[in-house]
């Protein structure tokens, strides 16, 4: 009775390729990708807002697709390629979306901005938004 109830599961070796760099982490299974990025790799550009998939602040690209990292278990993404806001700039040049956010002063406090930019990068890759209404609809996962 009670022999295994309180035993912690083993940590699970998990390889994540983040912004082109391979990392192997030993993770408890309930570690979200968001917490792995922020707490294990000090990549704090990805933000924790609601932590329930409602605000979009935690949006990253996994294998090129935008997802909520707060609702993603890191161990499930073993070997995945992840792009965060830190990985969008190339060779010292800002991603065009980053530059556009600066040019158009598209910030309020800025906390949601990394998620908005990653989400917009995903939207562009999807190629489904052809007018302003479609952009609005397809960006509705970001507050």
């Amino acid at each position: 009775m009670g022999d295994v109830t309180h035993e912690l599961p083993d940590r699970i070796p998990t390889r994540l390729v983040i912004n082109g760099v391979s990392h192997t982490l030993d993770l408890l299974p309930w570690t979200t990708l968001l917490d792995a990025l922020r707490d294990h790799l000090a990549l704090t550009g990805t933000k924790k807002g609601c932590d329930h998939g409602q605000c979009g602040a935690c949006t990253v690209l996994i294998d090129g697709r935008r997802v909520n990292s707060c609702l993603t278990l890191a161990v499930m993404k073993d070997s995945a390629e992840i792009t965060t806001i830190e990985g969008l700039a190339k060779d010292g040049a800002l991603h065009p979306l980053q530059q556009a956010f600066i040019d158009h002063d598209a910030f309020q406090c800025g906390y949601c901005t990394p998620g908005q930019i990653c989400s917009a990068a995903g939207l562009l890759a999807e190629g489904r938004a052809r007018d302003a209404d479609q952009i609005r609809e397809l960006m509705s996962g970001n507050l």
Partner: protein
Amino acid sequence: MNNFRYSRASDIADAIRLLAPDPGAKLIAGGTNLIDLMKENVERPSRLIDISRLPLREIVETPDGGLRIGALVPNSDLAYHPLIEQRYPLLASAILAGASAQLRNMASVGGNLMQRTRCPYFYDTATPCNKRSLGSGCSAIDGLNRNHAILGTSNSCIATNPSDMSVALAALGALVHIAGPNGERTIALTDFHRLPDDKPHLDTNLGSGEIIIAVELPPHSFARNYSYLKIRDRMSYAFALVSVAAALELEGNAISGARVALGGVAHKPWRSLEAEAALRGQAATPDHFGHAADLLLQGASARSHNGFKIELARRAVVRTLMQATNATPQSQAHKKIA
């Protein structure tokens, strides 16, 4: 989240094998609803069985001209698949009416069928809820029940099923393919979800140890006269107060076939064969659609805050059937209702 063990299933048989000995184990694919519920302590699985790598991501044509959709096809891939866009635009439209682009990229078809109600009392572990804890009572019946069910309710539960996709699947007559310890079986989508009666802790008729492997669409796709109309408190990324999936077969202005399913009003997508039969042979007019809506809403009953849904549903049915008649389906991006 509670501590849990994690296993990665290597194939379907392995997933079934892993499920069998542990009643506290749960399958995880996209995780969008399950992880959220675990963060709220509503779900506390002893083990998560990761099925996300199983080979259930294909969309293939069936010999009879329908489509078989693997249970792990992401919602966005399904909505944007050429065969779905061309042949089953009602399904594509309903999927795109739900959640956000990020969540649709994550969420699987099987997971969408398994998602649980968004009743706030179900989520709030400080309040009684028969669905979360059978026998504890229903806080919604005498509580804030504006979003709750008006059809098929019981004295135990007035929760609604939140899926948009399932409403279109119900209208299209989809089938659900299931694998389990005793082999495979197939049931109609309309028999997959259940009414709450005195067992609201059971959302579906999926047996313990079973796994959804595919959803099948029959050949008849209603690609011309269809519409999915979702009425909600804000323009995007909100659950339905009422939604309607409508599909018609027309000969001139005469209806030779009709399908209507309601979302946001019951514990399962709501269809009435009687209402659909009443439309056959009739002219496609608002009066006839109103009569069908009355039949569809027969037995609807309100609680203290959701009485508006009955009239809203009636009007939404008529409007959606007119959109289908005119081949002007509701756009999910341009929000003006035609």
